């Protein structure tokens, strides 16, 4: 991998977020099979891309506008296992939505993580609007928005890219290209070109990076962050990745992906790759890994227990937050 290696603490954090995400995800699928979670959508396979991207930003200052697959990104941006379990449970305490949204609609205002809808492609314009606000206020905050390659087919993506480019705003468009929009393969959604190539249409830099290589992503996004922060305009990054599991717990991916393809991708699992490398380079000991893994297990167990012992929402809560308190202007 890279020559310029981040400090040990950063490397361990990277491992921690990826492994935490995988442990939560595994728990979610279990809960799904047990009939305790209605909806599960997975970041499995995208962890390196998401952590590499999130850690390149300034937490608590820069803004995240994620999509439904960005659980790992949100963990690296400060959300917790408990947040995720409350969310999948649909508990009133769920910080993302108060139990109102299906899993995958992460939000915490105190962490600058913006709420999304399920509508593919709708969030990218919000990132551009945030960047416009920061430009007007003279703040150098950077806004990163995550999306799949499938989202680039929506008109809103085009309008977002165009607007950001015209005003040279501080936006990082972070595409996680896993080759499929549910079942539809890339050549039927984005044609013969890559997503990074589409940046040229807006006079924007477009960079392709191996999304399985966390350090490559971290370096690429760090450089992009420095550039856009300095006023260099928006940047499109295409992290090449793969979804290791079905689209969601409602999907049967065997209908549209050969099992050899999935197996081959599993053999390149970004978390195993990274932990193997860390150990090969003697940057993480078995004991250190075990400590982190144990902490993760404990966190996920505690979070599950907590979330699944919360009360149901009362009917009164249903009517909250339709309009601002007081209602009239």
């Amino acid at each position, binding site marked *: 991998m890279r020559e310029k290696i981040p400090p040990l603490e950063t490397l361990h954090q990277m491992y921690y977020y990826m492994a935490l995400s995988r442990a939560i995800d595994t728990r979610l699928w279990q809960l799904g099979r047990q009939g305790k979670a209605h909806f599960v959508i997975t970041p499995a396979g995208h962890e390196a891309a998401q952590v590499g991207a999130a850690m390149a930003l300034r937490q608590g200052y820069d803004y995240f506008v994620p999509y439904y697959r960005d659980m790992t990104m949100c963990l690296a941006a400060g959300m917790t296992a408990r947040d995720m379990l409350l969310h999948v449970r649909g508990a009133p305490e769920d910080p993302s939505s108060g139990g109102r*949204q*299906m899993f995958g609609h992460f939000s915490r205002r105190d962490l600058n993580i913006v709420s999304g809808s399920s509508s593919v492609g709708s969030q990218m314009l919000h990132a551009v609007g945030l960047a416009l606000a920061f430009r007007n206020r003279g703040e150098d905050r950077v806004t990163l928005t995550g999306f799949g390659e499938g989202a680039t*087919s929506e008109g809103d993506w085009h309008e977002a890219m165009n607007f950001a480019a015209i005003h040279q705003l501080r936006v990082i468009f972070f595409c996680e290209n896993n080759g499929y929009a549910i*079942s539809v393969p890339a050549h*039927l959604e984005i044609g013969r070109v890559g997503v990074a190539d589409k940046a040229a249409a807006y006079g924007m830099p477009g960079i392709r990076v191996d999304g399985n290589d966390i350090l490559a992503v971290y370096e690429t996004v760090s450089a992009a962050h420095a550039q856009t922060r300095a006023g260099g305009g928006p940047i499109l990054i295409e992290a090449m990745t793969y979804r290791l599991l079905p689209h969601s717990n409602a999907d049967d991916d065997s209908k549209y992906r050969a099992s050899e393809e999935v197996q081959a991708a599993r053999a390149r699992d970004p978390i195993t790759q990274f932990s193997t490398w860390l150990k090969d380079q003697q940057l993480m000991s078995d004991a250190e890994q075990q400590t982190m893994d144990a902490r993760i297990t404990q966190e996920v167990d505690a979070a599950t227990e907590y979330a699944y012992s919360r009360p149901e929402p009362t009917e009164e809560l249903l009517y909250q937050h339709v309009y601002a308190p007081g209602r009239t202007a």
Partner: protein
Amino acid sequence: MPELTMLQAIREAMDEEMARDPNVFVLGEDVGVKGGVFLATDGLFQKYGAHRVIDTPIAESGIVGVAIGASLVGMRPVAEIQFADYILPAIDQILNEAARFRYRSNGTWSCPLVVRAPFGAGVHGGLYHSQSTEKLFCSTPGLWVVIPSNPYDAKGLLKAAIRCDDPVIFFEHKRAYRSIKGAVPTQDYTVPLGKADVKRRGDDLTVITYGLAVQEALQAADEIARQGVSVEIVDLRTLHPLDKDCVLESVKKTGKVLIIHEDIKTGGIGGEIAAIIAEEAFDYLDAPIRRLGAPDVPSVPFNDAYERYVVPDVARMAKAMHDLAKY
């Protein structure tokens, strides 16, 4: 007659129309190899190939816009929008383009196309997989809006929609796909667009509804019958343009009206129906026109309890019928 689910009936309608007419083709997200996220188009790709079952990019406006273009020269596209919640990006193409093409060209061009979309709550879909968006399409002349309540109607109406020379928006309740079964003939038949259907005869009050709510209202009416209340149930089937005659005839007979829909009460199509009755059958009314719909919150929140609070169920329907009968 074989018993089919709604889903099977809908799939058969497409299959048979594709076999009958080479101009019919299907397009949408995941409709190909996967057969659609609800499997409504399952097997069609294998049978009719990639030119007639087209997996599209995630671009709803594009899906409908392309369907419009193809329909102009006599193709009969059946576009699937994956969820009714995601029809909004396509609404400009539907309302401003498809619905007005015939009128704006003085009858020269027209858009014989169908847009299918699953709608409705009750499957834990949260705010963005539970919406009832049919009202948005019921105020634009030139457009048909159709919602079936059972497999027989679903198949016959979808066939009629595909053969219709104007654009049809065809909403399918996603909770009805597998839960509702019924006998469906094997011979070719259609159910005419624009005709409501009295699904139950009764004398004390008229319930006007559509979609899955018809099935639930029928159950509620049976319960209420035991208390001696006789309920007539009008299944609109076509929401736009409305079959006024059928509605008014029933109301004039019973004198009491309850309109039920799963969509939120305020702004749902119950308003238009009530208004027509209050204008054209006022002298026949023996009671206020009641509406039962979801409360005024933005769609259906995810948590089971929220879903229960929001979606009108058989018990609430029975209570509303009971209260109105007593008025």
